């Protein structure tokens, strides 16, 4: 992937994904599953776990690194805006754009910075998001520069369709 060529993806999140993530991660904070709990906290609705949104940043970095999760050396995000997940089939769509900064092959330590923008309805939900990946020197040759994936198949899946 050439430096500066952004990779875009859209991830659909439904309540089902939040329940699944709660179980997988061990984070059972009820604001991620219960309307009553969210309302009691004055929240606009049930929220996606910040770490689920950040996991999608991790997927963007993995994809930018040619599909190798082991090549992701750092993931970072500030949870600046809530990702409200209504209890509908449609849920919410998080749009992400990853931009690789620096040369293929990376810097002195072989890693390169990636910045990731994440929005819902064009409103940013993360700031300072991104990380670092190890970039193979020939990465530019085999990664599409304009890859766009749409994870909005039915059933909607941030998780794999069984």
């Amino acid at each position, binding site marked *: 992937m050439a430096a500066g060529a952004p990779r875009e993806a859209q991830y659909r999140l439904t309540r089902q994904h939040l329940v699944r993530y709660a179980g997988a991660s061990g984070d059972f*904070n009820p604001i991620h599953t219960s309307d009553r709990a969210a309302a009691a906290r004055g929240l606009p609705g049930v929220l996606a776990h910040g770490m689920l949104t950040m996991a999608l940043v*991790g*997927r963007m970095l993995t994809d930018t690194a040619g599909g190798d999760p*082991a090549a992701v050396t*750092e*993931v970072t*995000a*500030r949870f600046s805006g809530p990702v409200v997940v209504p209890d509908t089939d449609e849920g919410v769509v998080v749009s992400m754009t990853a931009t690789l900064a620096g040369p293929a092959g990376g810097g002195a330590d072989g890693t390169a910075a990636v910045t990731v923008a994440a929005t819902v309805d064009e409103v940013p939900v993360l700031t300072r998001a991104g990380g670092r990946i190890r970039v193979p020197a020939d990465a530019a040759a085999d990664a599409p520069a304009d890859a766009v994936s749409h994870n909005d198949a039915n059933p909607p*899946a941030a998780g794999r369709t069984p």
Partner: protein
Amino acid sequence: MVAQAPAADGQLDPGPIVAMAGRTVVVPDVYEVAAEKIREFAVAIGETAAVCHDVAAAQAAGHRGVVAPPTFAIVPVFRGLDLLTGGAFSRDDAAIPAAHLIHGEQRLTHRRPLVAGDRVRVAATVLDARHVGTTVVLTIRTDLLDDPVAGTLGAGQHDTAADADTSVVCQARTVVMVTGVREPAAADGDAG
């Protein structure tokens, strides 16, 4: 760990929370990174990379077992936060219940990926605790340490020592807001 019972008004006493600054806790149980837990996590986040699911693919890529997605590290990292909060993720009577926590920022830096079969010791240090209004902002560093090395360190001995640093598989920096805390009062005695 914070020792306090939730007050009748549902607000938390800031004193014991602010007093956490500088404290290091080591989770007593070693975290065993399990293949099925990695697969479960990968499915939950929609990560389909073969090395996260298929042992043969992982081993062909030079790994001992299936590879954890990079944010999987939050699972053992939250074990440290659970201990610091007196059970936010594991107990109904936690000193700081999960409902009082808002995750503000997270960074996960990997020396190498976590893979199935790893055994890591979780050591969490509260770098800073700032009381602002009805919130205490905690900044926490968590080290995931290779157990064979960490096993030589007793609880409380872990610090920024160089020998410990070489065993750090992943280092996390977490900013978490504890909400619903009583506002500073003139006679609050915050320093306690």
